[in-house]
């Protein structure tokens, strides 16, 4: 499902298709039995989530990397740019758990410190994208009209180019700095999120509770923020975690392609893979494979969490 839209876009169909179902299945119950039922449902969903093995494993993996990003010094004694006394290209062993890289730095320390850039960029970009995408999706889905038509066409245009390619173009145009990277990933994720939320909002708008709010004479703002938004929260949470996985994917790939503008001596998983992968042919696999596995584990962790939340909401 990676696409990042590329692959990134892949979960759209699932998310988009299942979203409205979840919500509409839930909302008639709300209408009939009031808020008490909704609270009970939420609590039960939370229990299901906390007991699911996928969620626990995912949370442990992601938790470990968050810890590395915040206090790397706790987990390793060497700095990411420090040269060890043992020779370069030492294979993994007691002296250096993950070996040393081609210039003699500790691979384990670089993997631990490398969690930071990706865990700064991915959540920030996803957060911005979710806020903007949700707002746009709700407004477009509730009000429809010509603005919706035009924005939908623009969204289609952006989605028709693989996210990675688009990201490279944008970063190239506006310069390779961290704010640009975050902004680029955020902007490129907005269309997919908007599309999902928009179709959910359209489905919600046709339900009785929205009609009755309109009859009561509530304002559009009230209906969108107080009536529709609470009913699509579950979908937003799923979308948030799914996109977070894609954001990790996108940042790692951009770093590998060398367009994130970090200094190549800074610890960054994608950059480290790109600096070392040619040495695989000469059997020096560890400086490449450990950061690569770190990327894979973070993506898997986030995916496990996303999948468990989705399942819990459907239970």
């Amino acid at each position: 499902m990676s696409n990042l839209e590329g692959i990134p876009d892949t979960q759209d169909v699932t998310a988009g298709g299942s979203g409205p179902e979840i919500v509409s299945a839930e909302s008639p119950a709300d209408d009939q039995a009031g808020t008490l039922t909704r609270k009970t449902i939420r609590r039960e969903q939370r229990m299901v989530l906390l007991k699911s093995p996928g969620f626990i494993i995912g949370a442990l993996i992601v938790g470990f990397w968050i810890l590395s990003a915040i206090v790397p010094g706790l987990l390793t004694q060497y700095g990411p740019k420090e040269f060890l006394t043992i020779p370069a290209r030492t294979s993994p062993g007691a002296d250096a758990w993950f070996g040393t890289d081609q210039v003699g730095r500790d691979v384990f320390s670089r993997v631990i410190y490398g969690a930071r850039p990706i865990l700064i960029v991915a959540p920030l970009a996803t957060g911005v994208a979710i806020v903007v995408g949700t707002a746009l999706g709700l407004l477009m889905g509730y009000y429809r009209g010509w603005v919706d038509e035009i924005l939908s066409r623009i969204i289609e245009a952006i989605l028709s180019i693989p996210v990675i390619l688009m990201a490279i173009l944008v970063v190239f145009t506006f310069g390779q700095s961290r704010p640009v990277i975050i902004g680029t990933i955020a902007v490129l994720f907005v269309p997919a999120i908007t599309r999902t939320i928009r179709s959910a909002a359209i489905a919600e708008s046709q339900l009785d509770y929205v009609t009755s709010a309109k009859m009561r004479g509530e304002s559009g703002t009230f209906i969108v923020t107080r009536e529709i938004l609470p009913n699509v929260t579950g979908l937003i949470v799923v979308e948030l975690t799914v996109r977070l996985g894609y954001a990790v994917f996108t940042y790692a790939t951009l770093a590998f392609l060398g367009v994130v503008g970090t200094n190549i001596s800074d610890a960054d998983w994608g950059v480290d893979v790109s600096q070392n992968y040619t040495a695989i042919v000469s059997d020096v696999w560890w400086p490449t494979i450990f950061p690569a596995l770190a990327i894979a584990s973070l993506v898997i962790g986030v995916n496990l969490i996303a999948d468990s939340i989705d399942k819990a909401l459907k239970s």
Partner: protein
Amino acid sequence: MGRFIVRRLLLSLITLFILLIIVTLIPNIAPGDPARKIAGGTASPERLASVTESLGLNDSVPTQLWNLTTSVFLIDFGESFSVAAGEPVMSLVWTALGNSTKLVLFSLAIVVPLSVLGGLVAAYKKDTWIDRTIVNTGLAFSSIPEFVAGVLLLAFLAIPISFFKVQANAPDGANILTQLQHLILPAIAVLMVYFGYIARITRAGTITALESDYARTAFMRGLSTRDVFRKHIARNALQPTVAVLGTQLGYLFGGMVGLEIVFQYPGLGSLIIRAIDRADYPVLRAGVLTVAVIYMLATLTADLVIAWMNPRARLAMEEE
């Protein structure tokens, strides 16, 4: 049906036009002098002026947009500046497109049957350990970046087993079997990335179809499982799969930059990256627009295939 196709084509043209605007704007917005990026820091003022002139940057933006639009219709983007100086841009693009097509078709030939089979089996064995293994393995691998899958395969397959090749591009003049042998590792990487996604979609479609009245009736009429699957389930269950394949084709052609770089494969993705690296705007524009056109043709074809598979979808498209 005709009206539907015309409508879809018009929408695609609008999308293409928006992209044209974006790629026209790039050299106008990008920081630094585009001519200096191409000609190098030591170039003479005359050389800089001539590069700026041939990039068309002396014209107003609307004129540039108009010129680019004509290039698209003539399929002629002039000559490359820095990727391969003096070569016609389109000859570079056609070569890269040919390579990408080879990789994409070969990957799909492996990925589609295996993933669809995986999805069908998972649906048929729903809620057993087989189902869970297929779904969870797929989930674990999906959305791992391709370059990560690529380096893992390099280290664990290409190095220990000499049958697997480090470079995806076979030496010149190699026969078709050797070429495919070189493409196996990238294709496995694509399989790792897509298996879970396609299997999941197929599984969901199949479960819906299996639980439907017509499937139950078919079983009750005493048809064998194989016949029910072949005659009743497949046609309905595979529609979402076809739709997804349509949307993923554009990505396969233009988005697998990381994979192309790991396996040193000269496809469209790496051509675009090289063009960006060396500020070769004509190559960059032609490459990006090619990817977009492929994506549009692929989604359009997917829609038509779905219409052919499902009369109800056909009706809905006509009424749209």
